[in-house]
């Protein structure tokens, strides 16, 4: 990259907020996926004006710009595939306003999910998506990926809470979308367009979230099923029973085996284990809902069900699900966390298909997921230095996505397309929808400078 461009960047953000040191370029070459490419430089803007000036410069010079939060993307969204400049928003990390009267929180994009949670908690409020990466991921990243989590079935995902955005467009103009009102149908819904846009349309510099009161009480239970089909039937039946659990998670046999190998939890190595949580304001309310869920578990041949009587017991029941990533991350050197979603009734079919793919390609693919909204995370564990295994991983992934689409599912429930799923976009989206998406991209970003090569937007 030209030294005059570097000089201009330094003038915009100050020398202390610019870097082209080798150590930074390497650190920005990767996110939590397996993709890797170095940028040419990185900047830490501290206000919207600086972001705007950077975008103007980038437009003029046709420089690729990749916005970045915590870099926890699991699909290569934050990797600067074409080099260029990393725009790290981590230093724009102020909570601007918490307005309980209007049920709003206004934040800069670099605020970490958990920090907002901590600030809302004394008011009895929360921002529900609750991604498992919440201790580190940023709210800007959550908006750009439309992050979800275990509370999806009852509380939805990030998109259900974003009311308004300030966005710097690729040409440097500053766009304000939405309003601070709970309802608004005034014009096109530009806010929603940016949610989940993976940093390809604009840089989010301020977010106004709707926040929810947090029900203080929960009931938790766990059930084991000998067959995936029984577990799947239980999930569907719960979801149309009239009760909406605040969480309903599934853990498959391979994951249970891996957990047992690494912990003293001693879980039964059945085909599926379900963990359910109900929430509410009175004990009666949470227990009433849970009783119904437990009866559905039993009706569908759950071999054992356990209900937590205390907070500690509830935590113990959650340990299995929450320890899964750590346990799976230790299985081998590399892991790809997939993120497909299928209609709820298809969860057992999908789990069965994953298990068969694992056998066919001789790969370990333990799976956990948000059964309550049909979002599954098959975790492909492999050794990246073993060329044969890498090839089998690629084959299995391709077959996996074909199956997902055949079942009426979607490539990604919450992690996004990024680089990882570009080859499969055509499976899910026909030419017309790809054409419209590309037109939108061109409208906002005619020079294709914002997070290029992502989402399959390039022909």
């Amino acid at each position: 990259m030209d030294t005059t461009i570097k000089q201009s960047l330094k003038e915009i953000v100050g020398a202390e907020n610019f870097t082209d040191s080798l150590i930074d370029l390497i650190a920005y070459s990767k996110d939590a996926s397996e993709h890797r490419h170095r940028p040419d430089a990185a900047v830490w803007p501290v206000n919207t004006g600086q972001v705007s000036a950077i975008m103007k410069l980038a437009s003029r010079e046709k420089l690729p710009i990749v916005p970045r939060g915590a870099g926890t993307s699991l699909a290569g969204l934050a990797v600067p595939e074409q080099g260029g400049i990393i725009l790290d928003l981590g230093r724009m990390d102020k909570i601007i306003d918490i307005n309980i009267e209007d049920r709003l929180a206004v934040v800069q994009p670099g605020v970490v999910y958990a920090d907002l949670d901590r600030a809302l908690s004394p008011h009895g409020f929360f921002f529900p998506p609750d991604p498992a990466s919440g201790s580190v991921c940023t709210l800007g990243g959550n908006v750009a990926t439309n992050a979800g989590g275990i509370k999806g079935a009852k509380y939805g995902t990030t998109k259900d809470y974003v009311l308004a955005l300030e966005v710097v467009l690729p040409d440097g103009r500053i766009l304000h979308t939405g309003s601070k009102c709970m309802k608004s149908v005034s014009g096109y819904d530009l806010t929603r367009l940016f949610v989940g846009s993976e940093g390809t349309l604009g840089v989010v510099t301020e977010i106004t979230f709707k926040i929810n009161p947090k029900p203080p009480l929960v009931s938790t239970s766990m059930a084991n099923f000998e067959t995936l089909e029984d577990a799947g039937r239980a999930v569907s039946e719960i979801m149309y029973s009239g009760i909406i659990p605040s969480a309903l998670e599934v853990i498959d046999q391979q994951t249970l085996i891996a957990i047992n190998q690494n912990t003293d939890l001693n879980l039964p190595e059945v085909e599926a284990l379900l963990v359910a949580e109900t929430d509410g304001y009175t004990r009666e309310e949470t227990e009433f809902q849970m009783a119904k869920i437990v009866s559905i578990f039993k009706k569908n041949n759950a071999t054992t069900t356990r209900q937590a009587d205390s907070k500690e017991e509830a935590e113990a029941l959650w340990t299995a699900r929450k320890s899964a990533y750590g346990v799976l991350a230790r299985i081998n050197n590399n892991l790809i966390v997939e993120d497909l979603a299928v209609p709820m009734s298809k969860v057992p079919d999908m789990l069965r298909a994953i298990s068969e793919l694992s056998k066919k390609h001789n790969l370990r693919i333990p799976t956990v997921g948000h059964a309550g909204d049909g979002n599954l995370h098959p975790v492909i564990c492999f050794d990246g230095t073993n060329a044969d295994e890498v090839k089998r991983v690629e084959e299995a992934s391709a077959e996996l996505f074909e199956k997902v689409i055949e079942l009426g599912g979607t490539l990604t429930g919450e992690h996004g397309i990024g680089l990882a799923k570009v080859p499969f976009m055509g499976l899910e989206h026909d030419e017309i929808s790809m054409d419209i998406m590309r037109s939108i991209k061109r409208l906002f970003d005619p020079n294709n400078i914002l997070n290029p090569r992502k989402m399959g937007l390039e022909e």
Partner: protein
Amino acid sequence: MEGKYEFEKKFRDQVLRCSSCGFCRAVCPVFGLTKRPALNARGKMLILKEVMDGNVDLNDELIETLFQCTNCTSCTAQCPSGVDPPEIIKQVRKDMVHTGSCHPAFEGMNQVLQEHTNIYAEDEPEDFERERNRKAEYVFFIGCVGAYREDEATMATLDLLDHLDVDYTMINEVCCSGVLEDVGFQINQDLAQKNVDLVLSTGAKTVITGCPYCARTFNNKVQYQTLKDKGVEIIHISQFLKDFDLGVKTDKVVTYHDPCDLGRHCGIYEEPRQIIRKIAPNFVELRHNRANALCCGAGGGVRGAYPKNSIDMARRRLEEVEEIGAEIVLTECNSCVHNLKNAKLRAQKFEIFTTTQFLNQLLEEAG
């Protein structure tokens, strides 16, 4: 695969096992301050992967990150993949020193301990008005920071031991030199031997250290193995004091900062709290405590090499003290006390002590 560097032989699998999830961002004190991903454990592991791939050599360009780790091990405690970055980094620093890339402050530290008996290159030891090197049941080992920088705290500890009628002696101690292993060098065999010999000559069966780092060195390093072989036990002062009831109390709001060297490194969380709860009914925990405690920023040679960041890390820790409105901050490490005190702003009205110093103060006030 044969690596070019020693760290590859020992830690290749661990470096590869880092899944780049970035969870260390939440806990790394250096990252928390600088918000610079190259400085947290994930950044360091990515850099080491590139070294192992042969794309980058261990050279001066990498000093800023690889020599800027306080060795607090909070990343280790959080890592879902079971990676222990500080252990890897310590080996990498040795490799770097070997290839001629070292932070000048670390080189200086090694130099000083070749020529002097303590890290401050002080030639006049504080005498603490007590006879040394006599036969006694216990040896009290002060440590460099307690001897040369926080001597008031040390004096208070000695007064307390006297008050409790403990039969102890000090020795003509020299730096345990454990820190050299963290900054790319080796323990100084001569210094270690001198400490071992002096301890043994007192006939003591227990060494009580004022410094948790010295306790770790004595307990874990082969150069001090003779002590254990001869049945000498090494404990930290907090372990020694936990069962005493001194009958003094304070109304003040007290909190406790877990030193990394005592907490995460030795798993000692309860003993200090046991002591403090007896004297302070108004005890409040800091937001990050026990295994999650936030480092004061002094360790791993960072105070010497990156003094500004070190102090600013301590400031972040002190913000947590303000958050809970504590009036007294107690800790069990002179090095933490030293850094935290240096970082304290005039507007911050709380006071910082070692637990023993505070105990002694209460005793003196009670007459």
